[in-house]
């Protein structure tokens, strides 16, 4: 079948990326099949499970409900962009430490969603965590250890932030 492809220039995890996709193709398929980033998963294709969570211009979205063509000129982040070189994001370390994953298929989506939460609200209550992650389905854990891992990561991040502030004020002094 011949359909004119759409040429898309976008930024993914800070890198300039170009791809050509079908006009009706969703970003999730473009990321997985054209860019080679398989971290975002398709669990439903209808925005009901959150396994394909990525950010689009800083906002949390389901990549299955965004057209690849819409990514043109915008910035995307995925789970692949979470670690800083060798250093894992505290959420990533805490998920491992707290056994917050069993099969792990939902994990990338949870990590991306939890990062958006903590970026916006560094000290969320349990209820805030639970509602912020309600768009991400997990069938293995009952969510218990996931919520605990997010709490632990929030604590870690807060400690890092205080430490940074202290070093900065020392330097200033």
């Amino acid at each position: 079948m011949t359909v004119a492809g759409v040429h898309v220039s976008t930024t993914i995890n800070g890198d300039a990326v170009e791809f050509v996709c079908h006009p009706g193709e969703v970003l999730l398929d473009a990321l997985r099949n054209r860019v080679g980033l398989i971290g975002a998963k398709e669990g439903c294709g209808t925005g009901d499970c959150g396994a394909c969570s990525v950010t689009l211009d800083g906002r949390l979205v389901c990549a299955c409900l965004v057209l690849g063509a819409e990514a043109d000129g915008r910035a995307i982040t995925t789970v692949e962009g979470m670690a800083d070189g060798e250093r894992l994001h505290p959420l990533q370390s805490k998920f491992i430490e707290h056994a917050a994953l069993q099969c792990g298929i939902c994990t990338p989506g949870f990590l991306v969603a939890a990062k958006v939460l903590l970026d916006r609200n560094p000290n969320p209550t349990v209820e805030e965590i639970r509602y912020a992650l309600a768009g991400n389905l997990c069938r293995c854990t009952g969510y218990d250890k996931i919520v605990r891992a997010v709490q632990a990561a929030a604590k870690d991040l807060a400690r890092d932030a205080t430490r940074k502030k202290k070093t900065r004020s020392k330097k200033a002094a």
Partner: protein
Amino acid sequence: MTHDSSYKPRDFKVVGTRVPRPDGLDKVTGRARYGADMSAPGQLVGMILRSPHAHAEIRKIDTSRAEKLPGVKAVITSDDLPDRVNGRRDMLDILENCMARGRALYDGHAVAAVAAIDAETAKQALKLIKVDYRKLPHVTDVDEAMRDDAPVVQPWVRTPGGDADKQTNVAQVSEFGHGDVEAGFAEADLVIERSYKTEQTHQGYIEPHACLASVGPDGQGELWVTTQGHYTFRNQCAQLLGMDIAKLKVTSSEIGGGFGGKTHVWMEPVALALSRKANRPVKLVLTRDEVFRATGPTCSTSIDIKIGAKRDGRITGALAVLRYQDGAFPGIWGMLGGMTAWACYDLANVKSVAYDVLVNRPKVAAYRAPSAPMAAFAVESTMDIVAEAIGMDPVDFRLMNAAKEGTRASYGPTYGPIGIRPTLEAVKHHPQRKVKLGPNQGRGMACGFWFNFGGQTCSTVNIGVDGTVNVSVGTVDVGGSRASLSLIAAEELGVPYENVKCTIADTAALGHNDTTEGSRGTFSSGMAIIFACRNAIDVLKARAAKMWEIPEEEVEWRDGQAVAVGVKHDNLKPLTLAEIARKSPNTGGPIAGHNEAVADGAGVSFASHICDVEVDPETGATKILRYAVIQDAGKAIHPDYVEGQMQGAAAQGIGWALNEEYIYGKDGRLQNPGFLDYRIPVCSDLPFIDTQILEIPNPGHPYGIRGVGETSIVPPLAAIGNAVSNAVGVRMNHVPMSPPRILKGIKTQRQADAAELGKASAG
């Protein structure tokens, strides 16, 4: 070589610690590769055309237009999947489920498939296939399917022991029990009879079925697939496609949840057949809609319970009649319901009669402790009703009747050491039972039982020259077992956990392993690894003897080192595993150990749960306030993942109890094949789930391991039903206890109360 598999108490060094899992990094960075994450050069996209009808004769399939569409490389129907199993019923059923043969048996049944250069082309091709259906009468309800005038799902089915000429939907009748139930009821001070229904639920794994298949005209093939049993998949696919077992290599991808739903093949033979026809690799990934309509689910049921008891609480008679629908193909699901129904109790007179019934719904697959939750819902709800009727605390009532070591189980065997009583004692003293309840709040508890399975198992341990250890297993890691199995190898060899790397081997690398089901992963592979390590230790000892130039009998293995025993060897410093390994190229070559066996000695497992709920009496909405799981887990190798299994199983049970159900229309089509209207619990629906692991060793395993994965999905349905009953005084006999059902119950109760009041005031 025979090994001693009996339990020996020991002080564990690493087993029981909470180490990080070896696959953690890949899974938090997005690197881990699941079923849909593998690609092959030149791969095609496979897609399946499915029946829109619940039951229909397929008069003709015209694929000619699809075949002509540019970019289409193969189109197949059941003609391309001929019977190569000589009519062997169980395999033919699997084949017919993969692709309809003359009749579509349920909404979603595969009727044809295509492979094309891309998804768009494949989608177009599906639309060009013309199927000429003649609709047939259908039946989707289990009770209706048992009626004499019900549409027949499989013409060859006869009721065992029934009329040999009469077509029927009852494929199997099973009976279990002992004693004389009628005499038991006669002896009782009171007899309670109740009937229950449970709706069909799906395992709901987040990862849809997916595979990458590649078969050439030379009869060799490879299959990358998300599965709970790649050896079983290999054997099934090879048989169905007429391939040699040795020439089909199956690799188990990371698995994104299975819960029993990935224990036998669905579309994998179709992908292989497409690949063979196109002579190119084919990737086939199901959509969520296909997953719901055509894979997985467990049974819907209809169950009658009768319990007779003395005023003092002793049960004198117990009877269950269980009707389970297996979908369009016969299964063992009713039978398992019958076996598990009364397994928690020590009963003199007990009987279960179980029916396996066919309907026009997808072929039922195992779902975590398959069949036990529904039977437990019926039994444990009735247990509470009896306890209330005789004025006994429900925990004390259960304790009085609970099974113990030496009890003859209702399904036959006599129990060894078991944990039902300890879990009940733990419930009795659980702090949650002391929390005061508010208005419209209620507390319930229930018990559950599940078997464990051992089965064929095979493992290899290879020791590297630097002293690190590769462990290869053939059971699939469904939730952290590589960590647990590495712990076991580290314990047995006496090396640090970090020095062990556990890999799920492909089918070419190890002998046959049974599917990872029946809570067998850690039990059976754990046992095989222990024996493989002991096998390797014998080699290590021999090499140490060689290095020391002393007889092998004078070497012992202690804490990861070879020790020369006897006064004359005082001068010999113990040799560590790493030291022996380093010299291995010169002392006889690579050091390995292996074990192939049928893992016997699987234990049984029990759990008791406590649940607090609040019901909104104006809407029927139920909120889970607090939830506690107490389970006999045997030795907990990695407590984090044992807790995780208990919590996850409870959460699935909670979803089942409250909202999850397959909804079929009058047309026999599934109305909610998606995560929007098939409502699995979301994060904000649940509280933290408290866990208490009881470690009652399984005498049949060297480390005392029991399976832990399944049991805790069994109690939640009844625990919640009992809690709802305590909260609003309405006994729910239909699962899920969705808001419309609860609100209707409350209204009916109110009307009955008002009528009663009217009668009283009139009198």
